[in-house]
């Protein structure tokens, strides 16, 4: 036996490694959501009792400089958001399909975020305001 081990190195079985890797890749591909990275540099507002949400198809973001993006594209005013939201939601019937995600920096002034909120509501959307949880529900 000692003679055998001197000549043959122990072999780690790696034949199934590729299968495991493929399974993991499929898992990560299914769970990935690249669109959510939009506006990743934002400092989100914090509040108590926030709920976990699924990501809607319509996304509006406002960065710390007050720059507004709609579906990843910069827009000049809230009026563009109202027309854009109305256009995207025109065939949507259920409440869930009318969700519009608003990612806004915590430091943004009301002169910037309030017209955007109004535009989403006037466009027929239900506001899904994203934030970070701080504690327990009241």
């Amino acid at each position, binding site marked *: 036996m000692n003679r055998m081990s001197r000549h043959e190195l122990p072999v780690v079985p790696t034949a199934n490694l590729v299968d495991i890797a493929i399974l993991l*890749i499929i898992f990560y591909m299914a769970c*990935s959501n690249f669109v959510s990275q939009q506006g990743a540099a934002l400092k989100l507002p914090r509040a108590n009792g926030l709920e976990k*949400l699924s990501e809607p198809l319509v996304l509006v973001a406002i960065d710390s400089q007050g720059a507004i993006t709609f579906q990843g594209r910069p827009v000049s005013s809230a009026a563009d958001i109202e027309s854009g939201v109305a256009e995207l939601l025109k065939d949507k019937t259920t409440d869930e399909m009318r969700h519009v995600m608003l990612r806004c920096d*915590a430091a943004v002034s009301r002169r910037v975020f*309030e017209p955007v909120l109004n535009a989403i*509501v006037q466009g027929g959307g239900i*506001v*899904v305001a994203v*934030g970070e949880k701080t504690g327990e529900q*009241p």
Partner: protein
Amino acid sequence: MYKFPKKKMLGQDAVPTTSLADMMFLLLIFFIMTTTLTRVTGIVSDMPAGSKAQQPQSEKTPMISLHDNKITMNDKDMTREEMERTLKGMKLEQKSGNAKVVILATEGDVSYQDYYQTMAFIQNCGGIVAIESEEEGGTK
């Protein structure tokens, strides 16, 4: 007469798969680095649309006004804690329809953090947030 091609030696036509594992691991590392598995948290607020003139609110509709560093509820100055206590005491979760509506107005310089915190609290108390914002020639 058809002649069957001669059988080649086993393994001669095999697809080389030795580098497959390396490629798979590169892809795996890429997805691990770029994936965010945490779900977003926030509040869902179905704010009533329309202007004040079209949908007149009853006088009893509570109104919270944020201005600079002050909070006013029904024209009475109060701290955030007092406002939260008053809202909780209203038992909005037990009400229905328009009785659940709380108007959230802003004046002066208000940050989204303050607005969001108030909006989240109204939602958690079972209320429905209605925005009141300035518009040319009036409020919306």
